[in-house]
Structure formats: C-alpha cells, structure tokens
C-alpha cells in the first residue's frame, strides 16, 4: 500500500472528534494588518506581528513547538491543519531578526516532521511478544490485556525482588513533559521507586570534569556575547548539524561578521566548518588533549601566558602555587616540561600523536594566546571517549592560563552551560525516587547481568550493594536498550536472556531496534496529539507550546495517558493524575510559568491568540566568572581551593595517577591509533551527529534519509589502498561486530579515520551483520575512569570491500 493511501487510511480510521479549535484566521480577520493591531495584547505583539496571511488558505495555522526530541535546538514552527490533518509545516516568518532577539528557525529535521507524523510504520496497537525476545515477532492485543499484564508483572516483580529490580533507562525521545521517560518515572516513583542512574550518554565525562576545574557546570555565556570574541576555536564542535542550541551556528556567523577569525579543529570537514571556519585543521580523534597540552607548552615557553590571572585565580600551574601538602607533586608546568616523565610536551611530540603539523600547533597556540578575547569551544564528542575527562580538563586549563576566563568574548570551556537567561520553568513533575541506589547511566546492562555483584568500582552509589539485579526495564521514548547503547551484540545477548531481565515494557512510535526487545510494546501518541511544553535548554531564551492539534490515531495513547492507565490498575491513578487531564495539567504549568515570567502568555492567549512562543530579549549578555575574576577572594569558586584547579588535590588523592592524573594529561586510548588493536584495526571510526537525525530519531523519515543517506565516509587514500571506490558496499568490522554499508569516498575526512554517523537503526541480517549502519555494533562497554561515562567514540575498525 502506498504511503498516501496509508495516510488516508489512518485519517479515515481515526475518529476525528475535532476539538473546537479557535480558527484564528477567521476569528482575527485573517490579515497580517489586523493581527498586528488587534486581538493580541500589546505585550505579545512581538510574538504575534509575524503571523502572515498567506498561510491561512492552507488551513488553520498554529504556532507550536517543533517536537524536537533530544535535538540540541528548540524551535517554534507553524503547523497547518486542514480537516484534521497536518498539511504543512512552515516558518515563523518574522521580520524582526536582531541579535538580541533573533528569529528561531527550525532545522532540516523539523521541516521534515510531517512524514514522521504520518509514517505508515507507526505503531498502532498494543502488542505482546510471541517469538523469542528480540525477534520482533509480536501479536496485537487489547489495551485491557496489555495493561493487566503490565500491572500484574509490576506487582509480581515488586513482591519477588523489591523496587531495586525496576529500571527506567536513559531515553530522550520525548521533550514536552507529557511524553518521554519522566512520565514513567512518575509512575515508578509512586510505585515505590526504581534503581536510579546518574550521568547520561551525552555529557557524562564533562559534567564531572568541568567542576573539577571550575567547581560548576555554568562556565558559559549567553551567545550574544560571542560577537565580542576576536578568535574562535571550534574544537570538535559542529553546531550546524547537532544544533547546539537553535541559532548557535548563526551566532558564530555573527561573530565572524564582527571580525572574529574562526578555526575548526576536527577530523572531518563538518557542515559547520564549511559554513563558519576560516581554516580547517584535521586532528586524529582522541588526541585532543595532546594538542591542547602542546599548545600550553608553546604558550608557557614563549611567555604568552597571563601571569597575573594565573597567580590570582589558579592553583597548581607551577611549583610556586601548589596546594598545601602537595608542594612536591607534579605541577602543570612540570608535566609540560617533562620534569617527572622526561618527555617535554613540545609541538613535535604532539605532531606524532595528533597528525597536526608542529608548526600549525605552535601557530594556533600563539594566536589563541594573543588575539584576545578568544573563545575555545569544545564539542562533547571528545569526552565520550576513554579519557574523556582529560580532554575536558585540558580544554579548561588553556583558557585559564591565557586569561580568557571571566571576560566578555572569552570562554572558560568545559560543558559551558549559559549563565543567566533561559526561559524554563515548571513542567510535568516526575516526583522523587524512594530508592537511593544509583548506577552510571550506561552500566545498566551490567546491573541486568550482575547487579548484586556491583560495587563502587563499577560506579554504584547510594548503597554498598544492590539487593537484586534489574528484573524489569521500563523504556519510554528510549532507543538506549539497543541502538544507542554500546556493544549491541553483547547487549542484545544479555537482553535476550529472559532469566535475567524478566519483563521489558516499552512505549514507542515505531518498531525501533529497542522496541523489538519488548515483552509488551505500547503505541505512543506523538507530539501534536497531546499538550506539552518545551524550551531552550543549554542556550537560548525561549519556551514553546506543544499544542494538541490532532487526536491520537488508531489505538495510540500519550505516554501520560498510558502511565495513568497503568497507575489506575495499580491503585495509583488518582495520585498519578492528581485528578487532572493533560490539558488541565498544562493550564497549571502555564500558571506556574507566569509566576516566574509575568509576560508569559496565559492559557487563553496560547489557545485563542495562537501565541505559542515565548522569547526573552537579551540586551546585556551575561558570561561566567566575571565576579570571580574581579575578586577571587570574595567570590571563590566551588572548588576545594576556591580557585581554578589546574592541579586537583582531590584527583591526586584518588591515588590512581595512571588513570586519574592530578593535572590534565594526554593518555593513549586502548581503542585508538596507538592501542594494542591498532595493527589489526588501523582505522579510527567516528560516529558524528548527523543532520538527518536526532540520535536515532528520524531515521525512519524518507525526506531526511533521502537528503542524507547513511554511508561510511572514507578518505580517498584509505579507499585506494583497499581497492574501494565511491558507492561500493563495504564491510566495517572489529572484535565487537560487523556492519555492511555503502561507502562515500571523500577528502573531507582525514586519512586513517572513517565516519559512520551515529543513530542509524541496527538492522541485523541472518548472519548478525548489521545492514543499517549502526556504529554501536562496533563500540565497547568500556567506561571513563572518573565519571563512569560512555566511551562510544573510541572505536577502531578495519574496512574491506564487501
């Protein structure tokens, strides 16, 4: 059946009890002039003045949040609805577009959303597994049977093993409050709790490493401050594709227009590099801290460091400022000069590691230290690696020793959440978890396999020992059981064993690689089919309304409604909903937001005036550490010393210097170019965040897939050596598994490195070879030493023509 027919089918079968939507075009006269002048409170005119008339003919037009999922951006879009069907997604066509309040424009993924919403493969009914777990063999069941099974299994597992047996894994497919894992956490918390996790698959190492140096994660600035920068190092940072906050690439463009020189340091010539950089410097993945260290060597030996700032604000730079009790230990300068290890960290030393010419390293060091203010922005890819913490710490030290911290146009580095700003606030509360035991987010497979044997060495927190292994997984909007989890083949083996995890409950939109492992698979409604609210998270000043425009099709239900129905079976229904519907909850949340921002739209304004979008103006952008820099004694950091810790006594005290050095160091990776497997697997594989997807979301979308097909990107020199030509089917393999995928031969990736963009859906053939191009077939379960974070970017492979 063609997709179009299925769309009609979907529409016809659904009882379209259309809500009495205010038809704003009719109600407000349908012209831009009328809209600008009438019907909308003056405080909202900024939001409303852009609603044009041309769209009106295409049906009713609603200003809504793009569903976003775990996108780095959060964007308003205009959704056209005709006869109960979304017919178009258009742009917020504002004429106002200034740096203090820019237009907030959705990307490729948001533009393509209609084909996700009306995809023929959407899950339509509750299902139960009928084949072996993971086989993907399911049978349709009624909601009653599904809910009864879930409730009885939950009760059985609670009675048999206790609440530590439950686990709600990391998952980021929902972003509106009434979808996603928060809805399940609320249920679990009411039911007595579940095994917690800490950290996440995105930021594990940097969330720990940044505070080691700075005592906080708020090391960034509002992006309007970037235009004050004169020199920007985009270090492994690709905001054009991963959208690190809507408009982030645009702000770099503005900085460049204002005179900043922009350098991109990245193994591949990314979309961001092409659009934003004056120069591209390729670097071997996983060697960032070597180049950073050599830059520090150049800066110090050429006397380009900011001695006053170092003296006032840092500890551990050299022997003169070691903390008390650590006077004889290795300072940062000792490490640079090789005082202890006998290896001066010269550019030549780094060249052999990074493949960046020594002269280029020295040049970038000089430019960064002298063209001020300078901003070195590290992406997060380098911290999802074996020594992720070290790359972050080394990246924090360089801004400190050059005095680029606490000044406008500078940048302290690290995770760099913005200081000030934002437009967040109340959401749907998930409550608090009565269980205190917690594991690293990426270690749940170990807790399934051997939870009771885990201890602090595995990152277990909150208890000395677990009472039980994980016996039930409740995954909502999560593809982290299989697709986004490292070492899929081993993980699948653990999950497939029904004697280990006894029950897997999943809410999904599609039959994802994770969904195939469900015992009960429940069809979740999509955004636009219920109410929610979202907003900018890392950068930005916006909040957006996820408006219910459609009724959930077929037998789908929102995650909120599913959890409420399960709660009802467990006698917790009233506590779960507090007697409120999704719409009534949203009204409450809007009122709570208005308590924080008095000009936040009212419910009526959202619904009747189609406001849908709240944006705060930024006139004086804030930046981190201003007060600290001015007076570090009166405004100490939240570090043990109160200063920027180049040397960390706390890390020294871990007494594990080879893995957890007291000053940031370069350490070669096991799964790297100098590791034990390098001769067998001579290519490093990266899996960058790819334009057509948000992680694994949107991999089903024909429009984004057509625009950006999944390929192995390979340098022409590596291809030639292997007799591989553009378009050939190739086999990509290592000890963990094999992927078969067509190759794109390109010179936009450095020799020795291949790129298999992360997030493509695992699709094993009868021999277990993945045909979908999922990089996690090739990744390891190794974790980082300090944060117990994932290391999914440390990958070595061999490639051959299939």
């Amino acid at each position, binding site marked *: 059946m063609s*997709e179009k027919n299925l769309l009609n089918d979907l529409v016809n079968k659904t009882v379209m009890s259309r809500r009495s939507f205010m038809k704003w075009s009719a109600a407000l006269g349908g012209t*831009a002039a009328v809209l600008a002048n009438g019907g909308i409170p003056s405080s909202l005119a900024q939001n409303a003045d852009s609603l*044009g*008339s*041309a*769209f009106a*003919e295409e049906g009713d037009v609603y200003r809504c949040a793009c569903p976003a999922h775990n996108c780095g951006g959060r964007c308003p879009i205009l959704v056209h609805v005709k006869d109960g069907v979304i*017919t*178009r*997604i*258009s*742009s917020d*066509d504002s004429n106002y*577009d200034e740096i203090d309040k820019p237009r907030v*424009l*959705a*990307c*490729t993924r948001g*533009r*393509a959303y*209609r*084909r996700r919403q009306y995809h023929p493969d959407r899950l339509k009914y509750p299902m139960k597994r009928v084949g072996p777990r993971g086989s993907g063999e399911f049978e349709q069941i009624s909601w009653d049977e599904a809910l009864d099974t879930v409730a009885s299994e939950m009760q059985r597992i609670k009675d048999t093993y206790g609440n530590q047996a439950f686990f709600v894994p990391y998952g980021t497919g929902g972003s509106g409050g009434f979808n996603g894992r928060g809805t399940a956490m609320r249920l679990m918390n009411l039911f007595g709790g579940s095994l917690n996790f800490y950290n996440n698959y995105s930021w594990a190492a940097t969330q720990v490493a940044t505070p080691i140096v700075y005592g906080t994660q708020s090391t960034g600035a509002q992006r309007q401050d970037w235009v004050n920068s004169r020199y920007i190092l985009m270090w492994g940072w690709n905001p*054009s*594709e991963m959208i690190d906050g809507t*408009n982030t690439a*645009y702000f770099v*463009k503005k900085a460049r227009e204002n005179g900043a020189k922009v350098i991109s340091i990245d193994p591949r*010539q990314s*979309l*961001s590099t*092409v*659009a*934003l950089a*004056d120069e*591209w410097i*390729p670097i071997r993945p996983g060697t960032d801290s070597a180049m950073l260290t050599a830059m520090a060597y150049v800066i110090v030996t050429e006397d380009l460091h900011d001695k006053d700032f170092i003296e006032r604000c840092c500890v551990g730079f050299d022997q003169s400022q070691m903390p008390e009790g650590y006077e004889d230990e290795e300072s940062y300068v000792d490490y640079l000069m090789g005082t202890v290890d006998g290896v001066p960290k010269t550019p030549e030393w780094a*060249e*052999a590691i990074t*493949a*960046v*010419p*020594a002269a*280029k390293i020295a040049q970038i060091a000089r430019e960064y230290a002298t063209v001020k203010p300078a901003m070195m922005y590290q992406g997060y890819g380098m911290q999802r690696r074996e020594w992720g913490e070290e790359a972050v710490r080394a990246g924090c030290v360089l801004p400190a020793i050059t005095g680029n911290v606490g000044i406008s146009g500078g940048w302290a580095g690290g995770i760099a959440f913005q200081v000030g700003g934002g437009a967040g606030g109340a959401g749907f509360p998930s409550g608090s978890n009565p269980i205190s035991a917690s594991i690293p987010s990426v270690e749940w497979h170990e807790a399934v396999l051997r939870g009771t044997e885990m201890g602090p060495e595995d990152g277990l927190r909150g208890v000395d020992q677990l009472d039980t292994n994980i016996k039930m997984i409740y995954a909502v909007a999560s593809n982290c059981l299989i697709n986004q989890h490292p070492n899929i083949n081993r993980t699948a083996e653990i999950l497939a064993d029904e004697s280990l995890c006894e029950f897997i409950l999943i809410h999904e939109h599609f039959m994802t690689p994770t969904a195939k492992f469900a015992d009960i698979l429940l069809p979740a409604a999509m955004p636009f089919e219920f109410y929610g609210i979202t907003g900018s998270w890392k950068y930005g000043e916006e909040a957006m309304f996820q408006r219910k425009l459609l009724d959930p099709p077929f037998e789908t239900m929102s995650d909120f409604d599913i959890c409420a129905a399960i709660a009802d079976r467990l006698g917790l229904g009233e506590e779960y909903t507090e007697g409120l519907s999704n719409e009534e909850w949203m009204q409450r949340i809007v009122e709570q937001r208005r308590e924080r921002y008095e000009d936040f739209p009212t419910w009526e304004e959202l619904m009747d005036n189609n406001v849908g979008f709240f944006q705060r103006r930024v006139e004086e952008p804030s930046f981190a550490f201003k007060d600290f820099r001015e007076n570090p004694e009166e405004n100490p950091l939240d570090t043990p010393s109160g200063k920027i810790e180049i040397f960390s006594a706390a890390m020294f005290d871990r007494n594990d210097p080879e893995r957890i050095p007291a000053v940031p160091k370069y350490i070669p990776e096991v799964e790297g170019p100098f590791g034990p497997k390098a001769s067998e697997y001579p290519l490093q594989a990266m899996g960058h965040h790819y*334009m057509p997807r948000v992680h694994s979301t949107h991999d089903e979308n*024909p*429009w*984004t897939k057509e*625009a*950006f*097909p999944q390929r192995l990107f390979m*340098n*022409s*020199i590596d291809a030639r050596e292997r007799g591989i030509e553009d*378009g050939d089917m190739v086999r990509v393999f290592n000890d963990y598994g094999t992927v078969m995928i067509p190759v*794109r031969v*390109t*010179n*936009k990736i*450095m*020799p020795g490195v291949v790129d298999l963009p992360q997030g493509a859906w695992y699709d094993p053939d009868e021999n277990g070879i993945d045909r979908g191009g999922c990089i996690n077939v090739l990744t390891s379960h190794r974790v980082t030493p300090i944060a117990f974070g994932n290391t999914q970017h440390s990958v070595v492979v061999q490639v051959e023509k299939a």
Partner: protein
Amino acid sequence: MANQLGFYVNLSACSGCKACQIACQDKNDLQDGRKWRRVVEVEGGEWLKVGEAWTHNIFSYYVSTACYHCENPPCMDVCPANAITKRDDGIVLIDEDKCIGCRYCEWACPYGAPQLNDSTGVMTKCDLCHDYVDAGQKPACVSVCPMRALDFGDMDELRAKYGEVENVYPLPDPAMTRPAAVFKPHKDTVLTDSGSATIVNGEEI
C-alpha cells in the same frame, strides 16, 4: 510589480543543511523524490603526508539551487504545448493542465529545474512560492534558512544589495538563459569549471 524576481544565495554562509530543500518538499508535498530545490556539495583539494603530519588543501562548499526563473527561459521556448509562461514579475510557471509531459523542458533547462511528476505525468518545478509572494510572504526555502543564507526579491534590488556575482561552479554559464540569481561566493568557491573541484553528492541530488 517587480520586473524580475529572483534568488540570492550566500554560499559563504550555507552549511549544506538542506532545510531549504525539505521546506520546499513539504510546502509542495513532494513525496516522490522530486526536489525543486536541492543542495550540491562541491569538493576539491589533496592530502599530503609530511613527516608524521597530514597537511591538505581540501575545500568544500554547498550550492543551494532551484529554478532561476531565467530572463530567457529555454524551458518556455521548447514547450510544444505552450504550458510554460513567464509572469510580469518574472516568475516562470508550468501550467500542469496544459503540460503534455514530453519532458523537452527538462532537457532544455541547464539547471535540471523541471521535474516529472510520475503519478500525474506532467512536469513540475519551483514556482517561487508565488502564492506566498503574492501575499507578501517569502518563498518557503528563503524563510526557513537557519543561516539566513537565502533571500529573494527584485533582481535590481538584490544586485544593489548583494553584488553582481552571477555564476559559481558547478552552475552552467549564465550567458544563455540569464538566470535570475545573484551569489555571494564562499571563500573557496570556484567560479568556473577548472577541473579543480567536483560534485561529490551526486546520489543526493
């Protein structure tokens, strides 16, 4: 009324994200592989190993391209059914009721703008969102660009605002058809085909 509406494409700001391409597909409901706007990826340069280091002169840029509503549209000239017309404001339109699907226009157009709708058997192409334009709105592709790399308007005004560059590789020589477009080159843009750069995303366009 403008004499000739056209596009401005800022190659120096384009990231190749294809939001324009998909916004166009969404607005025009192109679900069958047709792309009235598409993005060409151009690449050139070489790698050289010096000692332990890799050096290079690799460059790349993207060209977002669509129908250029040419001053001398060859598609219109070759159409045996007189299905293609040029409005007073320069927008070139295909009348799908008149089109007989002979595809002459597709062969005549150096930009590959006219594309067959397999299910109706007639030719289709970018209409510069004339419905939006008539209502005072910007075309879909222009209005969505996250990098603000696209603009449209009267060609005289666009040239006054953005300059006179009217050709970039791999687009064909503009002399014949007089496309209604002005470009801001990327720092690495090759202006004419010198053999130093190639299209590398053929399968995507």
